[in-house]
């Protein structure tokens, strides 16, 4: 069943990006590109040749494959069916280190192109993600303390309605902090705008300027998987436990769909903030998470 869920997750990933975009189209009064646009894009890109910058090396050649592979490995260990299996042996820290390894390859791949704009994007990426790592690990500490378990499935075992009632303030604070990380890591508004195609104002897209063909398909699919994965993390963190059955899987994927709609709404009602404000916002999220820990531990 776990394997079936992994396959399901792999198939559904681009759909959630479609949901975000359709939500945005709805708010913008447009017809939108359709829910399945990304599938078509990926298919088209896979049929193209694989261009490289003039002087790139093997680093550029493997960068996109490696960064997709890292996300894929994280997808494999994720407890899609809720607890049990491999995920009960995987420490939660490993999960985020896999994502970090994928990011590292994207960054050095973009540096290999020798392009000023890609360097700019890579520079921003490492800055923001270094700060996001801080937020993530404060939240992980909180979850470990709450769940009494260091494994990924233990951390994601969910929060029952009774626990919600007892600790509503710290839980809401942690939710907000992780939401910030979710938007940042997926390069969504207000941290990055996937729609702008102005090189100076992008992070993730800027690192892919010279990537094309199957590599671009890998990068787009990897971004979609990462979106789905972090959304699933956020949903499972706070969802009450539905046992280990299909009910859980159904609840999980509807939760991700809801979060996609929410992301679309956030993107429709907010503008991207100035880059100089982003580090402050992430530091703010770290403080909010630390506050949640203090409230939870002390009261």
């Amino acid at each position: 069943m776990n394997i079936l869920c992994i396959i399901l997750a792999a198939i559904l990933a681009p759909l959630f990006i479609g949901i975000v975009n359709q939500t945005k189209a709805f708010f913008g009064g447009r017809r939108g590109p359709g829910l399945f646009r990304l599938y078509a894009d990926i298919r088209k890109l896979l049929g193209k040749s694989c261009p490289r910058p003039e002087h790139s090396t093997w680093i550029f050649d493997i960068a996109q494959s490696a960064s997709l592979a890292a996300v894929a490995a994280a997808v494999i260990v994720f407890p899609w069916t809720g607890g049990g299996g491999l995920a009960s042996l995987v420490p939660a820290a490993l999960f985020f280190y896999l994502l970090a390894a994928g990011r590292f390859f994207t960054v050095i791949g973009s540096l290999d192109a020798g392009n000023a704009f890609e360097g700019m994007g890579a520079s921003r990426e490492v800055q923001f993600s270094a700060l996001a790592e801080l937020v993530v690990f404060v939240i992980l500490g909180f979850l470990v303390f709450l769940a009494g378990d260091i494994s990924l499935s233990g951390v994601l075992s969910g929060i029952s309605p009774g626990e919600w009632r007892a600790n509503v303030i710290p839980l809401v604070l942690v939710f907000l902090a992780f939401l910030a990380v979710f938007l940042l890591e997926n390069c969504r508004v207000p941290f990055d705008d996937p729609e702008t195609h102005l090189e100076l104002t992008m992070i993730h897209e800027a690192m892919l300027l010279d990537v094309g063909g199957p590599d671009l398909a890998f990068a787009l699919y990897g971004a979609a998987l990462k979106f789905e994965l972090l959304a699933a993390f956020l949903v499972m963190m706070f969802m009450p436990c539905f046992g280990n059955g299909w009910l859980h899987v159904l609840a999980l994927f509807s939760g991700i769909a809801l979060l996609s709609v929410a992301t679309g709404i956030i993107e429709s009602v907010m503008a991207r903030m100035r880059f100089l404000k982003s580090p402050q916002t992430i530091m703010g999220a770290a403080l909010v998470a630390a506050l949640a820990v203090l409230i939870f531990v002390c009261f």
Partner: protein
Amino acid sequence: MLSTETIFSIPVLAVGGAAAVHATAYIHGEARRHLPRFWCFFVLTLASMAAVVLADGKLPFLLAWEAMGLASAGLVAFESKEKSVRKATWIYLLACHAGACALMLAGVLMNRPDAAVAAFACAVVGFGLKIGFPPFHAWLPEAHPAAPAPASAIMSGAMIPLGFYGFIRFFSVFCMEPSNAVVYGWTFLALGAIGSVGGILFALPQANLKRLLAFSSVENMGVVSMGLGLSALIAGKDAKNPLAALCMAGALAHVLNHAFLKGSLFLAAGSVLRQTGTLDQDRLGGLMRRMPFTGTLFAVNAFGLAGLPPLNGFLGELAIYIGAFSAIKTGDPVLVAAGFLVAVSLSVTGGLAIAAYAKAIGGTFLGEPRSKMADDAVETPRRMWVAQLFLTCLSVAMVPRTVLFVHSMTGGFATGILIVAAVLGMSFAAITVSLLLIRRFACPRGGEKPRLPVWDCGYDRPTARMAYTAMAFTQPLVDLFRPLLRTRRHVLPFKGDPASPSDAAIATETDDLALGGLWRPVFTKIARLFQRVHLLQNGSLHLYILIILMAVLALLVFAFVS
């Protein structure tokens, strides 16, 4: 299970051997005239390091320790024609002697049961000066860039962790007492947290590749120190808790992992210096195509040292992470606080290490060459990269070895987790390879890889000078931590016609906080104090005779009175 002696002698032998092979080609041209001097100090350094590990008492240990400092100072001073090298040698010698002094004091105090904490404090200064505990790390970023690369490799990989050996060997008994364990644990935790985050933070803005690596050594020693500190705290609560052994094992495994990875990186930095004549990352770039073996091995090792799966650097840190999160899980207030401190410091360190090593790889080896020196570089003689390859193989071998090592030290605790982590890392590599195969064989045109000019916003002739430099890459992070880093900017504003600016330049410089903010003022004060003593040594023979007479008189009076 490996004994502590074995663990600390492996880096001496492995990194020492690789460095020796590398050195045969590293020292070339005019400098070959001084080869005997180099080998003399090189062999003495290795021998004294081995003696430190093998010494069977306090006195032989101290003698070997002092010999190690002196012999390696000879290595640092190898290129003593340069003023900066002479300055670095002085700083290093000072650090060695101050450390040895503190250790002698610690050795004396250790014999008195009522002065155990004082002895420990002296040892923190003495061993800390070698390990690079903040603020005693000030010599590392000076001495490492000044020393020849093979010497930096053995000093960073094998010599500085010997301070931890000293602690483990002489202070394990001290640690048994629960009240002492708290002192020991928190000292190590605090110094480790400051050292790891501060070390990697100061590595970020460094333009000089070896200076960056030196600061990264401070960071890695901080990681080891946090593991040992957490282990002591847990053992202080319950000596039988397998978590204590787990943290200890993680820290010791990290000593080995760091030795191989960092040794190889320093050797690569030496190869870059030999082939291009500079270590300034803003003037390098594009070396991956010109020096493919050196560059590839550098990239692999930097990836490992950034603490990312699947390489060995990650597994040691993971063991410490598991220890930290398990400490949070226990619910004991002290352990929760310690666990949070370790987890948060490790995560910040990890995030910043990714930035620092992406910069090191990107600035030095990727993109376009930014100077003629980098453009003209060619691959090193084979034995130089074979030395790197040897250490890299050891790193790869350390992946399963770390799991076995932790298994044997903890008696099976957390073995399953580490095996899953290692296998998952391998599957990450395997998926990468299969995706590459898919791209090549399953995509209809995946084999076509046309070379196209890079996209520069529609401008069709981007030059290497328009690419992002290493400094620009880290500038946002450096700006964020400006109050701490105190990076100085030297800006040369452009002259003449604003439409075609010329001669504009910018350079940044980040000095070590401890050196500039603490040690330089302290030593300036000391020097001023001793200026007064100069009155007694003014060159006048009459004064000297007067002093001798007065001393004799004073002694006579003293003899009669008593």
